[in-house]
């Protein structure tokens, strides 16, 4: 009986369930030539044989299934970009295995390229000196999009991202927000199964950010495009990602649902009350964590006490002018993880 069960697990009927992206024990080391200083340092560095070995990614494993929208987070230098570069085939892993749609990205770089869209917020895939329209044309040619199909998709993307007015402007003249829209559109023209977004909202204003977020949510929901999002803007993550993978020092610290991370490391709410006359507030089940004149902040475990109970207790003891309940911010949790360079003790 147990034999047949394990046999069923191995059957190819499983194929549909197989993850789109699979990283297993990924390691990437860089050899950095030690710089030679002094006269002709640059030239001598060229012939130097002294290396420092830097391990940027250290045993990273995760699976990503079709249709997921995953936030890949970590502080600067955590190894995020290096991981993404291995997934895109730009870098070859030092050890471990990576597959995207059952292909080894670095061995089958060109075939893999057709499956993936890559958008770097800090770099553009568009042709800088030419009108945006030319970049779209070149992308369609490079990825072999049939003419009619390409026209239809381009038209749709131009409408969706409101790019009509700058389609004929050289890319170098576009604002950052316009350029980002152009970059993301270029990546979606050939409808890749997987879209990597590396800091797509960096440097954008509030409106431009929101527009990009809405578009990402749209392609994920409507097209079923799998999205891996790397960002330092945690509002991107709060609005878009159900799952996050958190890494630091090249290791995975957390991989799971966003809500679970919050429940585990920030299972509290803050009640902010403005009192008629300044006073300290002592209520069962809540702790006063701050007071600024008549404004008192109380923190309580939302999994143990209900907000109305705390509010009831406060209003029974004090005259309350105003009150609000604040959700914990992901920023506070992530900030704590980054500074401790590890997962905090669960406050349970």
């Amino acid at each position, binding site marked *: 009986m147990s034999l047949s069960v394990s046999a069923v697990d191995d059957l190819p009927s499983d194929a549909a369930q197989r993850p789109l992206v699979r990283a297993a024990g990924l390691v990437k080391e860089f050899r950095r030539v030690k710089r030679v200083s002094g006269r002709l340092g*640059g*030239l001598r*560095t*060229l012939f130097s044989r002294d290396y420092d070995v830097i391990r940027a990614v250290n045993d990273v494993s995760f699976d990503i299934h079709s249709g997921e929208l995953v936030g890949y987070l970590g502080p600067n230098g955590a190894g995020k*970009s290096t991981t993404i*570069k291995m997934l*895109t*085939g*730009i*870098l*070859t892993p030092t050890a471990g295995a990576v597959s995207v749609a059952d292909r080894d990205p670095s061995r089958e*770089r*060109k*075939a893999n*390229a*057709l499956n*993936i869209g*890559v958008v*770097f917020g*800090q*770099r*553009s*895939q568009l*042709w*800088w*000196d*030419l009108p945006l329209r*030319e970049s779209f*044309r*070149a992308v369609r*040619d*490079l*990825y*072999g999009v049939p003419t009619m199909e390409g026209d239809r998709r381009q038209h749709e993307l131009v409408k969706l991202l409101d790019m009509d007015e700058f389609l004929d402007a*050289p890319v170098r003249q576009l604002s950052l927000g316009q350029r980002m829209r152009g970059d993301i559109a270029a990546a979606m023209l050939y409808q890749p199964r997987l879209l990597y977004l*590396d800091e797509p909202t960096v440097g954008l204003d509030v409106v431009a950010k929101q527009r990009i977020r809405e578009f990402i949510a749209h392609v994920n929901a409507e097209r079923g495009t799998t999205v891996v999002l790397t960002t330092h803007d945690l509002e991107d993550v709060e609005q878009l990602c159900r799952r996050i993978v958190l890494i630091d020092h090249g290791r995975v610290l957390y991989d799971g649902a966003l809500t679970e991370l919050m429940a585990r490391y920030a299972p509290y709410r803050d009640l902010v009350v403005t009192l008629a006359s300044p006073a300290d507030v002592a209520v069962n089940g809540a702790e006063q964590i701050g007071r600024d004149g008549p404004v008192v902040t109380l923190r309580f475990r939302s999994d143990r006490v209900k907000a109305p109970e705390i509010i009831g207790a406060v209003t029974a003891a004090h005259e309350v002018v105003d009150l609000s309940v604040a959700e914990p911010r992901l920023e506070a949790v992530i900030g704590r993880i980054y500074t401790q360079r590890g997962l905090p003790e669960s406050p349970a």
Partner: protein
Amino acid sequence: MTLVRQVLSQVRIGCLTPWAYRASMLLSFLVLALQVALFSVVWRAIYAGHSGPVAGVDVDTAVGYAVLSLTVATVLNTSPYSSIESRVRDGLIGVDLTRPIGLLTQSLAVQAGYVVATLPAAAVGLGTGLAVRGLAPPPDVSDTVRFAVSLLLAFGVSQLITLLMSLTSFWTLEVGGVGMAFFVVRTFMSGAVVPLWFMPDWLQAIAVALPFQASTYTPIAVYFGRPPGGFVSAVGLQALWIVILTGLCLWLWSRAKHRVVVQGG
């Protein structure tokens, strides 16, 4: 079919990009016209002090050589602004590697586009040459055909030299001035400024051992009916350089692939 479409799209990019800087393109044409006119003046002045040919070359050939060599070098020996070198420096090479086309194919296609974009320079150079009465048509049709064959091979050699040079930027990113030094060596050793036949023997020997002359000097020497070592061996040498340079490019790229450094990020 797919590959043709991919390559043509990159040729188009290479062709449109320099024309995004129209003023700079037109200025380079003007510079070419000036150079052609000045060289013709200078050669005539030099020959005025001599009676008869120098190094077996008469004044008309010397001036004609200058007209052709400056024109050919301007069109063929381009240095694309968006070469691998600048893309490595800006970290954009990472973007190129996410494309479903090989880096060498892509680069060569873009370079070829630059050559196409620079073609009007041929009309400018030759037009100026005719205006200063510095150029005579080749003696007969078979000479014209020979010139065309050698010019086509020169195109291959020059594009591979450009590609090879930009591939070295994977290693020489930190060394300043390499590009400039290369430009000087290439311009001089290709015979774009001074024909090889005016060079002292030892310098000629060096120039002949390098690939640069196959990209400019050879087709023009063919044009004037004095191909080095005869037409067949001159053209054979060009073909040999294409094979060697292709091999070098492939080898360098395979080495570079192992140590692709994407700057920053």
